[in-house]
């Protein structure tokens, strides 16, 4: 076995949705500083795989372990170390962008409004920090969700279709954020059905029907 235990080790995971055998024996290992792109046509279980990895969904067979231990035994430590962004931006329409961040990140670590504004600044939506989320455009909402992932300072990012609704500038921004996250020793698992301009330093996991 390699020296440092992997961040994430997915071992032959099987999941059924009613009669459909959605995930048939998926295996994946990911160490610090690595990026993985999970791709494949719609309905092949990309989101299901992500939900299994982040512990929301318990697989019928197979296991997911974090630094050598099954995630069910180290649940709170594991969840503290991950930031999950689902394909909806998951913002409360009635709360402002800043409030959304404060209530989401504040549950994970003590964070000052200044820090939150800085992460909104980083994703280019500092202007709408005090606007209710329902008035923001889909792209702006996606950027606020990105700011939330940034503000969590989590070593492991699990992003579900993070590039949807993003314009060219947004895509470039997210790509650079992913690269600097990887250089900083963090790891990320990105689900996206389209091609990513990430060049060679992103491994690929192809899910077929």
């Amino acid at each position, binding site marked *: 076995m390699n020296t440092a235990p992997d961040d994430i080790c997915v071992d032959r995971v099987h999941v059924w949705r009613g009669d459909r055998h959605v995930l048939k024996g998926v295996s994946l290992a990911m160490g610090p500083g690595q990026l993985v792109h999970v791709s494949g046509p719609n309905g092949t279980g990309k989101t299901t795989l992500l939900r299994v990895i982040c512990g929301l969904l318990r697989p019928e067979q197979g296991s997911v372990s974090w630094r050598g231990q099954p995630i069910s035994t180290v649940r709170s430590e594991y969840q503290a170390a991950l930031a999950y962004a689902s394909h909806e931006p998951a913002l409360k329409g009635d709360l402002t962008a800043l409030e959304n961040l404060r209530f989401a990140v504040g549950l994970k670590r003590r964070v000052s409004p200044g820090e939150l504004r800085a992460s909104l600044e980083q994703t280019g939506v500092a202007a709408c920090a005090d606007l209710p989320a329902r008035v923001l455009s889909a792209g702006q909402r996606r950027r606020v969700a990105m700011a939330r992932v940034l503000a969590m300072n989590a070593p492991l990012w699990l992003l579900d279709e993070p590039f949807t609704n993003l314009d060219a500038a947004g895509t470039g921004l997210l790509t650079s954020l992913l690269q600097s996250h990887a250089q900083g020793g963090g790891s990320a698992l990105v689900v996206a059905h389209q091609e990513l301009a990430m060049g060679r330093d992103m491994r*690929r996991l192809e899910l*077929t029907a």
Partner: protein
Amino acid sequence: MGGGGNQIVTGTGFWSMGGYARYVWPCFAFAGMILGWNLWSARRYRVAAQLRARRALEAAETDRAAPTVVTIPRTAGGKA
């Protein structure tokens, strides 16, 4: 067999249930219905399940799906 009711002697009195026939016989009839319904619906449920299972097995025969996932070895492009 205990004191033994006196209906056996009068025979016809048996069906009148001491004047309460209107309540006793419907109860036993209803009990019979419930017992019957349980048996009938259990059998029907099992047969339907077997049918569905048979049909699913035939469907499974036709499209022997290949394994869906190709795992890329870790060393491909990843940092050490």
